[in-house]
């Protein structure tokens, strides 16, 4: 017997989940970007990059968890559409890259300290990855077959 996804039977489930999704990724991406900008020497100059990163660490992770969990639920409403959507696939590749980069190379750069140039390079790569995730998400609805 086929079981209907309860999220697909309620008209408000999807938009409500989207609000959680947006709030979660805005928190995570925004806070990550504030640390990246600090690595570039922009803003919060009285704190070191590692001080800012430490203050944001758990909030960033919390936002990321909320965004990923709500994202999985959004995905579950129409998995084959998402799976065939090239914008979604690019978004997922960028997400894996961004999260891996965030907790490996970037973490080292922020907490152990690197040269100014290396720090700037890491910051730019991090910002570019997170921004492409936002663009990938928006363009899911644009490249979706049937919608213009």
């Amino acid at each position, binding site marked *: 017997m086929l079981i209907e996804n309860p999220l697909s039977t309620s008209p408000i489930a999807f938009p409500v989940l989207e609000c959680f999704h947006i709030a979660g990724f805005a928190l995570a991406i*925004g*806070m990550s970007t*504030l640390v990246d900008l600090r690595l570039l020497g922009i803003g919060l100059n009285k704190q070191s990059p590692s001080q800012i990163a430490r203050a944001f660490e758990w909030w960033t992770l919390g936002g990321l968890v909320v965004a990923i969990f709500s994202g999985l639920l959004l995905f579950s409403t129409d998995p084959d559409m998402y799976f065939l959507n090239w914008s979604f696939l690019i978004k997922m590749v960028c997400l894996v890259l961004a999260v891996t980069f965030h907790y490996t190379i970037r973490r080292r750069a922020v907490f152990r300290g690197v040269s100014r140039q290396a720090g700037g390079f890491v910051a730019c790569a991090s910002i570019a990855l997170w*921004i492409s995730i936002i663009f990938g998400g928006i363009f899911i609805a*644009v490249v979706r077959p049937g919608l213009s």
Partner: protein
Amino acid sequence: MLVSLLIWLENLAPFSSLRSSGYAYPIVLALHVSAISLFGALIVATDLRLLGWAFVDGPISDLITQLRWPKRLGFLAAATFGFLLFACKAEEYYYNPFFRAKILLFLLIAIHAGAFRRSIYSAPAMLDHSLKPPVRAKLAGSLSLFLWLAVLCAGRGIGYIMGRPGMHYK
């Protein structure tokens, strides 16, 4: 009167072409969301400090002063892209209940800013007597978090209201 002004706005050449463009419109939308992420983090950072939930090892005034201009610029960026999105469909947005709710929430945010201006935002040094924030700082921070979250939800809601027939797009 207002509606005819909005019809004039949405039919100006740049907004008219943005509305019918295939990719420019979603690009502006993605830039709006990107600016929201940055601005949102600045708001949350300030509010968390006012609540005493982050950056508690430094004085409140330090963070408020440092983030004042970044927040203004972040808001300007998000609002600029937001205005472009609105101007393309100004007439339709006028009838959109979520857009109306969002405008109302912005009014409440302006009232919030005015109400806490003297006691918090323009004189944060008064909050530095202890590292623990006073009640009025916690109130300002939690109200701000609530209002901006409501703005985010109202903003997402706008896209769920179907456009009305009979819009005066040229």
